[in-house]
Every structure is written in C-alpha cells, then in structure tokens.
C-alpha cells in the first residue's frame, strides 16, 4: 500500500495533461486540487502500521525494489504533505490562462517525484525519483515571469545534471564492489576498502551540490529568488531536502569514521555563518530568504555529520514549515506591490500578514515553544565546548537578519489589498509551527530566549549605525561575469576543486 501515495498524483498529472486535447481546460484546476490532496487518504493507514517496509510487486528482496516508512522517513513525508497542500490552495488561479495547464502538470509531477524519493530504500530508485522532481523544478523556474529566470534555470539545470552524473558514478562503484543496490543487502555484505571510500566521497559531493551547502551554493540564490512565490516555497522547502534524505540513507548504511566527519562538520558551520552574513547584506527580499536556506541547510548537515539522523530529519520538517510560510507571505506582499525591493514593501496595513511574519521569524530563530526550538534542542545534545558557542552565535545571527527583515517591512507604505485566502494560508502555517512545537517539545525557556532576542536587536542597531547595510558587495554577485558561459566555467572550476578536496580527504 505504500507506493500508492506516489501513484495517485502521477495518474492525476497524466490525466491533467490531456485535458487541452479534449477541450475541457476549465476542469484542470479541480483535477489538480484532487491530485495534490489525494495522498492524504492513504496517510492514516501508513501511520497505523509504522514501521513497515515492502518490496514492490511482492518479489524477493534481491530482485525487487524496496520501499519503507519508519522513524527516519515520517518527518519528511509529513512536511511534504502539509506544505504541498497549502501551496496547492495558494496556486488556485495564480497563473495566467495560457500556461496554467502546464504549470499544474509540472507541480503534480514534482509532488509525486518528491514522495517517491522520500519512501525509497534502494539507491537507484531514489536517484530516479530525485531526477523527476529536479526536472519538474527546472521547468517551473524557467516559466517564471521575472527577467533573469531563464538564465537562472539554465545554470541550475547544468549543475544539477552534472551532480547527478557524479552520483551515478558513486553508485556504480558501490555496485561493482558489493553486487547489490538495495541498502539492507549492501549493509550485510559490506567490507570497507579504498574504493568504497572513493564512492562515498563522490556521492557526498554531489549531494552537497544538490542541497546548496557552502562552497557549492552558487545556483541557489538566483534559482530560488527568480521563481514565483509558490514555486520558491516548494523549492526551498522540499526540493533541497531530498538530497539531505539521501545523505541520511548513506550514513545509515556505511560506517563513517572521524576523518570523514571533520570536513562535513567544517562545511556545516561555514555554511551557517556564510548564509547569515550574505543575508544581512541583501536588499532584495526573496534573495534574503534564499541565502537563509543556505544557512539552514548547514544546520541539517550538522545533524547528519554528528551521526544523529533523527535530529536532522526533525530539523528538516521544521525548516520546511517555516521557510514555506515565509516565502508564501513575503511573496504575496511582493506580488501585490509589484516590486521585490525591501525598502518599498510594508505590512503595516495587513494585520494578519504582520502577525504571520512575526510568528514565523520567531520560529526560525529558535524561540521556544515554536517548532524551531525543538529542532535546535535535538541538534545541540552532542555538541561540546567551542562548537556549542558557535551554535548559539548562529542562532543569534539568524535573529539579527530577521530583525532586519521585520524592521524594513514595518515602515510605512502604500495601502493595498491582499486577498483573504492568501492571508489565511500564511497565518495558518504560522500557527501550525506554534502548535507543532507545543506538541513535540512543550518546554519554555523564557530567560535564554529573551537574552538572545535582546542581544540580536542590539547587534542589529549597532550594524545599522555602522552603515553596514549601505555596502553593496560586488564579489559574490553574478553581475561580475560578462556572459553566462564564463560564469559556468568559473563555478565548474570551484566544483572540481571541492571534488578533489573531498577525494583526497576521504581516501
């Protein structure tokens, strides 16, 4: 029964694509909504039988494809179902009539691809569903109406495809050595050797590029900021989580020794601080949120590198909810004002949006009892000494950049009308983070949180007085390259350097 949650959106996608040929295009909206919400029907049966695994088609394990749902999977699947339901309600009537049908088919394919990636326990099956989701997201970034969207989509396509090929190379070496692709069978027949280390280095590098961690982050700000608001919510909330799930699968199967943990730990902390530093200097609202995704994926990588996959999974669930909510609310503001510049946006006239953004900012900063505090409490259990203080500094940095966002949004602006439906969606996502936090982790640490908030507001005013926000930073923006070709060459050299670094470190 588990693969049925992938079959329903896939069937709905194919049926929606033939509606223009039958001249019944007005029904595509309704069929789209049925397709996106249909996996909720199977969810109670899956939750009753936790943990369960089955082989598709009732073949034996050696010759079949295995799918499973257990404690490492459930946070990802629940996050996917909740966020996609809210985005489906948001997208109703968003696209113009000419491309409406194609956008619905692409979002349905993205949904089924992500669900298939999250339930798989077989290396090749996981790769295939991740490719379905990636191709759908390339096309969704490409049909956006912003100015540089096609260029961003091309960059994203080239680098994601290259990372997929390197991942297949790693899978090939694992198959050459053990003779199986099923993860449970690999674990039984495993003998560590230098070739398996090389395969692990290749696989980890390619999954790092696909999820946007520090040195290999360059495609993420363009692709996530030039896409439309609901597509950005899906991309930042869910598509970058699928490679993180792949890393969790690899750490559960292969023994990772400390010489492999060190580069991953270093990259996690570097990514956290780099994302916050670049987010503080941005003037475009969606680019600020996209650089934040780089920072938060550093937190997920921290959980993976400390061999704590449950913490990484729950932090991924928390991040999907609040990043999706932020993109939807800030995106609806940006769309109705007609610009994405931070100085011109304001939420003073829409009280429910203001409440939603403030609640979500508190959630992402780790204030208890929101769900972000639960994720951070799980991550911090095994940290000692200097790393613990660096972790707290990262939390304060996140609060600083979100103070900046709220400060700019609370200035006066023109009065506009935002439809009730969009406000209701953002507000319900914000309330969901509060309820989720109370359900999972009902502690309240008022003292620590108020100290963090006071320090964050103080640092924000200090930076504003120093004039840091007027600096326009030329080094890391893509305008310094003249043509797209030279840009791809430069990033390619960076990718090869990181690949060689990982290879020589893991060997």
């Amino acid at each position, binding site marked *: *029964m*588990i*693969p*049925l949650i992938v*079959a329903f959106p*896939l*069937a709905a*996608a*194919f*049926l929606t*694509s*033939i509606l*223009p*040929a*039958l001249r019944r295009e007005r029904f595509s909206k309704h069929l789209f909504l049925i397709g996106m919400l249909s996996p909720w029907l199977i969810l109670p049966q899956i939750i009753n039988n936790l943990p369960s695994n*089955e*082989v*598709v*088609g*009732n073949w034996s394990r050696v010759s079949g494809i295995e799918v499973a749902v257990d404690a490492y999977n459930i946070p990802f699947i629940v996050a996917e179902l909740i966020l996609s339901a809210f985005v489906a309600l948001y997208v109703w009537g968003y696209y113009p009539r000419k491309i409406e049908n194609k956008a619905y088919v692409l979002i349905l394919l993205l949904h089924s691809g992500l669900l298939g990636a999250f339930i798989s326990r077989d290396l090749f099956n996981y790769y295939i569903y991740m490719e379905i989701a990636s191709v759908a997201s390339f096309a969704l970034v490409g049909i956006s109406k912003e100015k540089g969207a096609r260029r961003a989509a091309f960059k994203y396509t080239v680098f994601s495809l290259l990372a997929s090929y390197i991942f297949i190379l790693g899978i090939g070496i694992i198959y050459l050595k053990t003779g199986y692709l099923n993860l449970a069978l690999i674990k039984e027949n495993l003998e560590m050797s230098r070739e398996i280390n090389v395969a692990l280095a290749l696989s980890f590098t390619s999954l790092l590029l696909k999820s946007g961690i520090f040195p290999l982050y360059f495609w993420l700000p363009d692709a996530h900021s030039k896409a439309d608001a609901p597509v950005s919510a899906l991309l930042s909330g869910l598509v970058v989580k699928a490679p993180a799930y792949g890393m969790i699968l690899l750490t559960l199967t292969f023994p990772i020794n400390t010489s492999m943990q060190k580069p991953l730990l270093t990259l996690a902390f570097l990514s956290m601080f780099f994302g916050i530093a670049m987010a503080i200097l941005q003037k475009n609202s969606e680019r600020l949120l996209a650089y934040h995704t780089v920072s938060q994926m550093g937190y997920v990588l921290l959980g993976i590198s400390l061999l704590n996959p449950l913490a990484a999974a729950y932090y991924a669930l928390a991040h999907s909810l609040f990043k999706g909510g932020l993109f939807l609310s800030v995106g609806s503001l940006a769309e109705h004002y007609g610009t994405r510049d931070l100085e011109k946006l304001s939420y003073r006239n829409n009280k429910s949006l203001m409440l939603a953004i403030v609640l979500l900012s508190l959630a992402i900063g780790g204030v208890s009892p929101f769900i972000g505090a639960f994720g951070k409490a799980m991550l911090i259990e095994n940290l000692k000494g200097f790393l613990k203080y660096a972790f707290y500094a990262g939390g304060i940095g996140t609060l600083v950049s979100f103070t900046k966002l709220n400060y700019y949004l609370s200035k006066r602006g023109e009065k506009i009308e935002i439809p009730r439906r969009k406000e209701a969606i953002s507000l319900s996502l914000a309330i969901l983070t509060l309820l989720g936090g109370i359900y999972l982790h009902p502690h309240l640490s008022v003292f620590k949180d108020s100290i963090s908030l006071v320090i964050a507001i103080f640092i924000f005013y200090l930076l504003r007085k120093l004039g840091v926000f007027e600096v326009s930073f030329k080094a890391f923006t893509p305008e310094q390259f003249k043509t797209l070709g030279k840009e791809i060459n430069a990033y390619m050299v960076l990718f090869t350097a990181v690949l060689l670094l990982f290879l020589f470190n893991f060997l």
Partner: protein
Amino acid sequence: MKMSLIVRTTTKLISPFLVAYSAYLMLYGHLSPGGGFQAGVILAVSIILLITSHGYNRVRKTFKFWEVQLIEGISGGFLVLLATAGVVFGGFFYNFLRGGELGSLISGGIIPLFNIGVALKVGAAFTFMFYILLRWVERD
C-alpha cells in the same frame, strides 16, 4: 524545407516498415533484445524522418498536435492504472497474468502490456518534443 522528389517518395515507402519493426520490438520485448524504450524511439523516428523530408507544416496537418498529446496522456495514465490494478491481486505492480510456458508469447503476464504502454508514451513524447523545437526554428 522540402527535399527532392526521390527522397520524398523513398521515405514515404520506408516509414511503415519502421512502424512494423517497432511493433515487433514492443511485443517480443520479453523474449529477445528490445523492449519499451527502444520501440518508442523507432516509432518517433518514423515520423521525424517524414518531417525532415517533407517539411514541418505538411506533416503537422496529417499528425495533428492534439492527437499526439492525447496518445501521450492516455498511455501514461494506462501505465499507472495497470500498476494500481495489481493492488487488488497482491502488491502494487503485481504480475497478475502469470502462466504460460517459458519462451512463448503470452508467458510474460503484464510485461508485454507494460512494454506497449511505454513505447507509445516515449514515441509520442519524442514527436511532441520535435514539434515544439521545430516550431521556433521554422518561424524565422
């Protein structure tokens, strides 16, 4: 973009043989080399051969846009429905038409039906892709 009379006549004669070869690959995919994807590519090539020799507008009048889209969507839906129908008999994608001796045509169960679905979908998808890419080129 029309080519000379000899080329046009030859491709009109060759094209049905390509369709017959693709049908052979579809149906005997479980007994000899071949299978769904290869059959679909050859099915698409039989139309693309006509596009390169007769010109895009002429072929588009015969093999219309919405017909190709309809074939693609219906065969995709047929594949998923075939897999879901297996749930009633056992697991998802269960082979519920077993039986038959080894080496004969009906011994595969749902595998030949799956091959037919995949071949039609892949053929329609490639033809559609060429229609869309050539539409921009021909307009200039």
